[in-house]
């Protein structure tokens, strides 16, 4: 790895990334600068007055500073980034990229940092340890892990040894689900089967917003506890539990709000355990159910471009 290329972050590295002496840069911390200044002041004072006791102390402290540099450097040397992985997030959330760090020997105070967000921890010998890097996601789509830093200022915080890591790691960013989506239209119901639209007590059909007059027994307290929204369980007599979502059902909405609504519907349908399919223009996800179906549909939403 050539130094300037690494610095500019143009080159992506392949895993595992091993911190060897060529890529670790030890530098004094701000506190280290101040500490060094004080030590230097003591050394000059001691030399000026040939005060050997002051000099003994000053040299001891200065030597401690130098040893601290070596320790910081050696604390990082040999650390390896084994893998980086993140679960998909909804737009606006922070993606947690989990870097697995490992070192042949035990280490203290290793920090994984990106911008202002840092996580500190130790490493047991030859045992992969997760370090989370929280990267905010702004838009639907994919999110690449930016270059981040692994550093340590062990043992005294006078010097920190750091190294940039730029590895390929990507996660999906799902659309941010609409907060209070309307009931899905009848068109979403599998053709030939209609819902009676009459409220009954048979099957849980969905959740609707609480309106005065709704029976208190039907309030979904679980949702209230989660989202702070008062929703009422909507029980309907239906023959079908199969849904067919289509981008076309969100008439009148721009693309992003439309995707947000579909996202919310999919989440609701998933929560209710319904089977559903998704059609986005030319793409489509066949009927399915469960976590895999949800992830597949959300991924389609994340990556959709008309």
């Amino acid at each position, binding site marked *: 790895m050539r130094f300037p290329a690494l610095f500019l972050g143009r080159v992506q590295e392949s895993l595992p990334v091993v911190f060897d002496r060529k890529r670790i840069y030890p530098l004094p911390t701000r506190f280290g600068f101040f500490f060094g200044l004080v030590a230097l002041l003591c050394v000059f004072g001691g030399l*000026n007055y040939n*005060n050997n*006791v*002051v*000099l003994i102390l000053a040299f001891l402290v200065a030597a401690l500073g130098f040893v601290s540099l*070596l320790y910081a450097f050696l604390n990082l040397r040999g650390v390896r980034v084994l893998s980086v992985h993140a679960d998909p997030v909804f737009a606006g959330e922070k993606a947690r990229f989990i870097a697995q760090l490992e070192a042949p020997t035990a280490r*203290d105070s290793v920090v994984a940092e990106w911008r202002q*967000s840092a996580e*500190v921890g130790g490493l047991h010998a030859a045992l992969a340890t997760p370090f989370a890097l929280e990267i905010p996601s702004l838009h639907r789509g994919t999110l690449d892990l930016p270059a981040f830093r692994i550093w340590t200022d062990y043992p005294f915080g006078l010097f920190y040894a750091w190294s940039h890591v730029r590895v390929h790691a990507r996660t999906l960013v799902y659309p941010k689900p609409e907060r209070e989506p309307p009931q899905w239209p009848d068109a979403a119901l599998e053709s030939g089967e209609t819902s009676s639209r009459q409220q009954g007590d048979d099957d849980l059909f969905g959740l609707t917003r609480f309106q005065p007059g709704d029976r208190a027994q039907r309030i979904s307290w679980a949702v209230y506890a989660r989202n702070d929204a008062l929703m009422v369980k909507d029980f309907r007599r239906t023959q079908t539990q199969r849904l067919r979502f289509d981008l076309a059902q969100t008439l009148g909405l721009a693309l992003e709000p439309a995707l947000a609504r579909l996202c919310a519907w999919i989440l609701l349908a998933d929560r209710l355990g319904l089977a559903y399919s998704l059609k986005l223009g030319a793409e489509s996800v066949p009927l399915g159910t469960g976590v895999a179906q949800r992830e597949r549909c959300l991924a389609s939403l994340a990556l959709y471009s008309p």
Partner: protein
Amino acid sequence: MKPAALSRLGVMFAGLASIVAILPNLLWMPAWVSVVVLLALAWRLLLEGANGLPKPPAWVRMLITVGVVVYVFFEFRTLLGRQAGITLLTLMLALKFLESSSRRDALLVVTLSYFVTACQGLISQSLGLTAYMVLAVVVITLCLRVLNAPAQRSDMRLGATANAGSSLRRILLALLIPLLHALPLALIFFLFVPRLGTPVFGVPEDAIEARTGLSDEMAPGSVSKLYIDDSPVMRVRFEGTPPAQSDMYWRGPVLWNFDGSKWTASFGYSRMPAKLDGLTRAATTFSYEVTLEPTDRNWLFALDVATTAPEGAAITQDFQLVQRKPVTALKRYRQSSDATLLSRIEDSRASVMALTQPADRNPRTQELAQSWRAENPDAQALVDRAMRHFREEAFFYTLEPQTLGGNPVDDFLFSTREGYCEHYASAFTSLMRAAGVPARVVTGYQGGYKNPGGDFWVVRQSDAHAWSEVFISGRGWVRVDPTAAVSPDRINRGTDAALRPNRYENFPWLRDLRDRLDRISDVWNRSVLTFNDARQRALLEPFGIAEMDWRFSASALTIGLLGTALLVLLTLWWFHRPAPIDPLAAELRRFRTALKQRGLAAGPELGPSELIELLSGHFQETPSAALAFLRGVNLARYANQRADPSQTGLIRRMNTRALRQIRRLPLKLSA
């Protein structure tokens, strides 16, 4: 990142660092400053308590700061002196601790603690305090380590294993091992960082450590605490035979002027350098080395009479050894003296000055001297007459004499008749002057104590002494010690023998302890405290390098830095070295390597039994030795309860045979 808040543990350790740094200063700082400092520390520590005090508002802290600064200024009359400066620093540290609320504040407190600790070297350089200071650095570094532990990083998320290194054992190891690594490097810094021959900035005026020693005036009858002060003035090593204790007169200030009650130095005469050229060396020359404690005065002490002067010092016409600058730090110098020199230099000009004293004071003394002179005007006879007077009349030697009135010499000679060396020297000199014999008072130290376990003599403040010199034409200046006539023990055996003969009778171990501590101090003084640029340059003389220059310093420092790096690497390698493999596994590894060389896939995951299977189909003949070896390994591993060294040897021999076979046997073509 926003500043990390300070945890309760962080406050406690920042407090520990400040307390350790401040503690020695409480001994000498003005009492009110000490009180403010302690209150500030206590307040901040109590803030952390269950029902803590509110933090004092900013204006209160400001008021305290300004108040104490003003107080310090009026106490010391300066803010820049050593004591004033350190007092202010200490105060700053305490107030910074009081207001610290973030981790960054705590780190500042720790740094200031280091600084305040180092500054104590300006107050005292004793071995005890230095040991305390090194210990303080260890404790402050521990505080720094705690503040730097992941648990104190409230500005970061704590990972799953953030507390991996927070056991006490790990913290201590992470503290002590770096300290141990730093020690040799610190020593190399100490020895090889080039020292300054002369200060770049001025030396501060106040040498705090200097004790009340001899002064350049003497007023018998005034209270003097000097004679009961046991602290050492100097330690002396003689080359060859030392003089008898009764001949050890350490010459200090010479007092010429007498106003009837007080003796003072002569400002002109005592400043002129002596003309010693052309004097031949006598056989009675003593050579020795003096380590003088700081006195804050210009005098150096030498045996009567110095023939050489150390660098920066000169011998005056009255044989004082005077240095241009006051002795503000421990001073080590080589010195030689010639006991006969005093009388060999005749200085007739001085005789006029050594006769004057006020005619209207001490009339009875003058009357007595005149009567003696009438009997026998010869100078030596007058000296003998006066000595006989002290010896035969009822004079007493005591450190607690009665106070004297307006004519102190009269009072002493005719009524109180008790006193110590100052009284006798003053009275004798006054008598001589009245009798027309030129005389002067010499002050200094007399005697010394040979440390039984060491090769040096200690001269203490309690050995302070005053004697007389009279000028006898034809013989020059002659030393006369009237105290010897009154208390011969004082001169022959020292102050303790004369005044406190039973001092250590019941506590002989106390004397042993004092001697032992004295020897340690002596080593400390000579090896560490007096190390300077001259000694540094001569450091490598034993190795044939006469003068060490900066190039050598630079190489030594580089070697020190590299050596420390190597030391750290080796230590970490030693701590993390892989566990030794057991001998059987090592033999198997050799065997597998040989198989691989023959092209067989003998991976590390294959045990002996699998290897037997692997071998079966590959060779044209049965590899009997190899199979025997593998069965042997299995047997040794699983059949025996205990490892047997002789068995290991057998396995190794079997392996050697097996390897020979493996390399030789032809492989099946199909394989």
